[in-house]
């Protein structure tokens, strides 16, 4: 033993010992975690998950109308003519000039062809044989126009052309071009001061609808393009085509739903939104940790609309409850898809909104949700939900939560 130890000098030992300790102490990370087994290794016990369903405040829910008018949303609606309902679109384009500037001179020009382009934002992917029917409308098209008036423009005498929407097209532009003798169809009388207006309907193999891009959409806007030439100048100086987008566009519905104070309506145009108020007991909101919060809405009838076109309901928090003009909690929104034809309850996950109710008294938002339909004023989908005045199916809020764990259990 002594021989063994004497091989080491004092200095070597000290350095070796500290080196080994350093390797051990610095080289190993702290890792406390091992598999547990309750109840032995669960001081404080287990988390108990609680589930409480709270009804909305009676008569604290109501719909408000008139937020976005037709055409103020991103889409213009057209649908096939059905006995129950139909949507038609009308639009008026910006003025077409009577001359173009080339260099320092104005020249009269010759219209070689005219293209009318419409954008498909959404359509039922299962619908077939869709064709957009384009009609000439009077330039007096403006807000306040009725379905009957637009329907009066959708007649054979004003028919311009039909634009086929390929069955494979999910979204995109479709176009018709007028040339030669057909140019007379899109000629603009002098009395109209270069303005042209159109009405659009749709036909298909079965009942359906198409959402067209409006001037507020990010893309797929309606557009007219005039391809022109000036005989007096050579081919290298020919002017570019002239394009115009609508200065006004709208759509009209044959049988818009009437406001009903006993139900909760959302969507449509002018668009409807509704508010639902709750009064949450402190025992399920103060000092608890919320795991899930579901706003449960029950349709009074299967949700009306065109299937296959995505539509969502968005719930927002209410900063201060001032009815239909309540300021909303910024940045936070909960969204859920609604399915046309379904009568199942619609569940909106609202945990982020409910958590804002857990802040200290005085600064917390109202215990209410404000709901709207997206895309607003641009959707065929028209959900109607039961209210607290309905015989059944009033809005409810289901909270799943846990109380703080009793860590102190020794």
């Amino acid at each position: 033993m002594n021989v063994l130890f004497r091989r080491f000098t004092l200095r070597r030992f000290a350095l070796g010992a500290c080196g080994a300790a350093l390797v051990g102490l610095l080289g190993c990370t702290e890792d406390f975690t091992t598999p547990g087994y309750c109840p032995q290794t669960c001081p404080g016990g287990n988390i108990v998950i609680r589930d409480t369903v709270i009804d909305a405040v009676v008569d604290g829910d109501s719909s408000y109308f008139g937020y976005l008018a037709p055409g103020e949303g991103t889409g213009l609606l057209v649908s096939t003519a059905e006995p129950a309902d139909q949507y038609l679109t009308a639009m008026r384009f910006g003025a077409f000039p009577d001359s173009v500037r080339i260099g320092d001179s104005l020249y009269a020009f010759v219209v070689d062809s005219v293209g009318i382009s419409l954008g498909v934002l959404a359509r039922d992917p299962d619908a077939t044989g869709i064709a957009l029917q384009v009609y000439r409308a009077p330039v007096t098209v403006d807000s306040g126009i009725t379905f009957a008036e637009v329907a009066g423009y959708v007649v054979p005498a004003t028919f311009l052309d039909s634009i086929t929407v390929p069955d494979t097209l999910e979204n995109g532009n479709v176009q018709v071009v007028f040339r030669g003798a057909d140019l007379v169809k899109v000629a603009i009388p002098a009395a109209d001061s270069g303005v042209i207006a159109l009405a659009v309907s749709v036909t298909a193999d079965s009942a359906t609808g198409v959402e067209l891009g409006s001037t507020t959409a990010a893309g797929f806007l309606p557009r007219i393009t005039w391809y022109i030439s000036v005989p007096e100048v050579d081919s290298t100086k020919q002017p570019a085509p002239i394009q115009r987008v609508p200065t006004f566009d709208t759509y009209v519905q044959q049988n818009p739903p009437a406001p009903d104070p006993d139900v909760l309506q959302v969507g449509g145009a002018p668009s409807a939104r509704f508010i639902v108020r709750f009064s949450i007991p402190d025992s399920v909101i103060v000092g608890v940790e919320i795991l899930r919060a579901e706003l449960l809405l029950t349709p009074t009838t299967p949700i009306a609309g065109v299937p296959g076109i995505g539509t969502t309901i968005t719930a927002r928090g209410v900063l201060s409850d001032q009815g239909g003009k309540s300021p909303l909690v910024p940045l936070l929104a909960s969204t859920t898809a609604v399915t046309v034809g379904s009568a199942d309850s619609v569940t909106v996950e609202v945990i982020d909104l409910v958590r804002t109710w857990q802040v200290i008294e005085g600064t917390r938002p109202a215990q209410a949700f404000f709901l709207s339909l997206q895309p607003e004023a641009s959707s065929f989908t028209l959900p109607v939900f039961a209210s607290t005045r309905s015989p059944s199916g009033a809005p409810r809020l289901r909270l799943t939560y846990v109380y703080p764990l009793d860590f102190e259990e020794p």
Partner: protein
Amino acid sequence: MRRIVVGLVLLCGVSGRAAAQSSIFDARGLGIPQPPISVRAVGMNGSGSMLDGMSGTNPAAITSIIGLSVGFNVFQNWRSSTSPGGEGSGSDAGVPLVTVVNRIKETPYYFSGSFGSYTDRDFGFVTTDTTVVNGTPVGFRDSLESRGGTSDFRLAVGYRSGKTIALGFGFHFITGSNRFYLNRTFSDSVFTPVRQRSELAYNAVGFSLGAVYHPIEPLLLTATVRHDGQMNVDRDSLQAYTYELPWTLAGSAQYQLGSRGTINAEVAYSTWSDANAEIVANGGAGADNTFNASLGAEIATSPAQPGKLPLRVGIRTRQLPFPLAPGQQPSEFSVAAGTGVRFAKGHAAADLALQRLWRKADGGFSEDAWILSLGMTLKP
């Protein structure tokens, strides 16, 4: 050389954040008691601690120290734990004891201050199971972690009368905290994860009395009585409950084998069950009295220089006070070996110890661990 070693050791100390060893048996009560013993005593598995002035078990033992001495320990723990939920391994490092001892000049009195771990409650558990939410079974994974424990700050005074007897008194301020973190994630992402935390704070005041008796030349006997008072527990800054800490009666003997070394034996009994009723009343699994016995030896490898690379060995058996379930008191058995060296003309000493221990309790819980400890003693 001295500066290098001190620098290395200080760095070792900085790296260790935990107070003591993590264990699955830390889950209940205050966790596992941590004897305040130096690495020299660790090498003998605690059997010589009551005669070791750099340990904190016997205030009379400080009278064995010559001149101002400063000691501190660091350790690294590697463990493998088994529960009915599965097997896992962990590791952690810590600084379990810092001690300062000096003699009041030209008097028979000594004083000491030490700061060490009293109990440890570092643990982390992962549990997977299924619960019913909204009428639907949902899988979950719980991760429960505790950091902290309690520390023992001791101020001690010792008195030595000749070579025959020494007496000591220690005042103990026991304080500490546990920070708990619970994370639960669900298999269904519609449920947001649960994240909860809480903090327990502890404080208690105790005392200890100790004696060292040297009846005949090769034999040294010691005895201590210690009471740690009443533990006050605050939860998140609010008073939660109190319970009694134990009385501890301990004694040891050392037999000198001439210049070849020493044989040491030590026993201790602690009345942890004084806390049982209060712990059970607060929903815990209770507390049991503990018995601790150790036997060890320090063998000089160089009789002319006993401080140069002695071989220390020891075994220890002990009961742990806080069962994971009522009636399932855990126990621990360990073996240890160590050595040490003095250098810098006797102004510094380094000690190294390696422990191998096994813990077990009924119900399928067991654990084994390696603990590497490094101690430094400086005599400026």
